C-alpha cells in the first residue's frame, strides 16, 4: 500500500462501504415509514449498522445475535456466530478500521480541531475491558437469564446502550415519520443522552465507543492474533524509535504488539515508520511493495 495515499484510500473505502450498505434511498424520503424489507436482510453486515436505519440493506450482527438468543426456543446462534467467526478469521479488527460506519462517524468527529484528551493509562486499560463486559453481559448473559412470562427476552444492548441504533435508526425515523413521534418517551431521552455523550467524547477522544463499549469490536478482537490480515514488524529494520506508538490513536505500540487486540488496522503507524519496518500481511504474504514505498518516502524527502 502506498504510504502517501493510505489514509485517503481508507476514508474512501469507509465512505463507499457506508453508502453501499445504506443505499435504500426510499427509506430516507420524508413521510415514508418503510425500511428495506428485501432478501438482503437475511444477511449481516460485518460492522455496526442498525438494521432499523432507513437506508440499511443488511442486518446488524449484534442485533441479529440478540434476535436469535432472545427467541423463545433459546437457540444457540450458529448462523450469526459462524458469520462473525468467518469475518474474524479473515479480517479481525480490520473491519473496525475500514468497514464500520459508526467508526467513520467517530473519526470524522475527532477531526474537529480541539485539544484532545489523553486518558490516563491505568483508567484506559480498565475502561477497555468494558467492551468485553458488554459482549458477555448485555449481549449474551442477560438475554439468556432474564425472560418475560412468554419466554422472550429483551435485546438489552440494543435497547439500553447502543448509540448506533439511536443515531442511524431512531433519530432519522422520528424525523421522517410523524407516526412514530407519539411513542417518544424516557427511553428515547436516555438513549439520546448516551448518543450525545458518545458524540461529544468522540470530539476529544479517538473512537471512544470502539475502545470502550463496542461488543462487536470485542468479538473480532478475539481473532486478532489468528486473522489472515495482520501487521508485521521487520525486527531487523526496526530502530525502536517509538514513532509508530506515538502515532497510534488506539494507544497500541505496533513495534512490540503488532497484533494487539486494540489495533484496528488503520495503517497510520506504517506512515510514521522511518525505516519501513511495519507492513500489512495477508496469510503471511506482505501487502504492497517495500521498495516502491521506500522510493516514495525518499522522493518525499528529496522534495
Amino acid at each position: 500500500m502506498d504510504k502517501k495515499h493510505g489514509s485517503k484510500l481508507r476514508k474512501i473505502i469507509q465512505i463507499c462501504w457506508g453508502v453501499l450498505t445504506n443505499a435504500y434511498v426510499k427509506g430516507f424520503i420524508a413521510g415514508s415509514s418503510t425500511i428495506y424489507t428485501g432478501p438482503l436482510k437475511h444477511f449481516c453486515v460485518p460492522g455496526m449498522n442498525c438494521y432499523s436505519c432507513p437506508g440499511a440493506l443488511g442486518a446488524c450482527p449484534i442485533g441479529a445475535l440478540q434476535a436469535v438468543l432472545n427467541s423463545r426456543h433459546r437457540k444457540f446462534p450458529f448462523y450469526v456466530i459462524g458469520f462473525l467467526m468467518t469475518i474474524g478469521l479473515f479480517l479481525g479488527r480490520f473491519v473496525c478500521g475500514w468497514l464500520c460506519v459508526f467508526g467513520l462517524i467517530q473519526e470524522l468527529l475527532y477531526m474537529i480541531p480541539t485539544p484532545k484528551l489523553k486518558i490516563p493509562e491505568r483508567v484506559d486499560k480498565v475502561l477497555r475491558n468494558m467492551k468485553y463486559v458488554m459482549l458477555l453481559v448485555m449481549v449474551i448473559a442477560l438475554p439468556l437469564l432474564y425472560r418475560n412470562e412468554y419466554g422472550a427476552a429483551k435485546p438489552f444492548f440494543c435497547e439500553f446502550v447502543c448509540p448506533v441504533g439511536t443515531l442511524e435508526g431512531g433519530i432519522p425515523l422520528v424525523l421522517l415519520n410523524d407516526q412514530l413521534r407519539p411513542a417518544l418517551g424516557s427511553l428515547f431521552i436516555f438513549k439520546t443522552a448516551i448518543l450525545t455523550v458518545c458524540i461529544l467524547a468522540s470530539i476529544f477522544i479517538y473512537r471512544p465507543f470502539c475502545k470502550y463499549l463496542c461488543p462487536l469490536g470485542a468479538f473480532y478482537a478475539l481473532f486478532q492474533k489468528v486473522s489472515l490480515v495482520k501487521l508485521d514488524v521487520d525486527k531487523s529494520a526496526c530502530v525502536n524509535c517509538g514513532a509508530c506508538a506515538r502515532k497510534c490513536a488506539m494507544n497500541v505500540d505496533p513495534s512490540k504488539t503488532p497484533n494487539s487486540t486494540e489495533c484496528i488496522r488503520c495503517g497510520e503507524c506504517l506512515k510514521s515508520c522511518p525505516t519501513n519496518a511495519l507492513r500489512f500481511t495477508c496469510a503471511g504474504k506482505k501487502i504492497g511493495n517495500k521498495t516502491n514505498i521506500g522510493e516514495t518516502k525518499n522522493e518525499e524527502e528529496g522534495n
Partner: protein
Amino acid sequence: MNQKIVSRIIWTAALLLALGMVVFGYVSGEAETVFSKAVNICMECIGLG
C-alpha cells in the same frame, strides 16, 4: 511438525467450523429469525421501547 503448518491447520479447521455453523444455522431457520427482526422497525433498538 512446523508451528506454521499447525497454525494453518487450526485456522482452516476453525474456518470450516465457522462455515459449517453458517450453513447449519441457515438451514435450521436462524436466517429467517434474523430476517423477520431486520425487516421490522426494531422499536427497542431505536429507543422507542
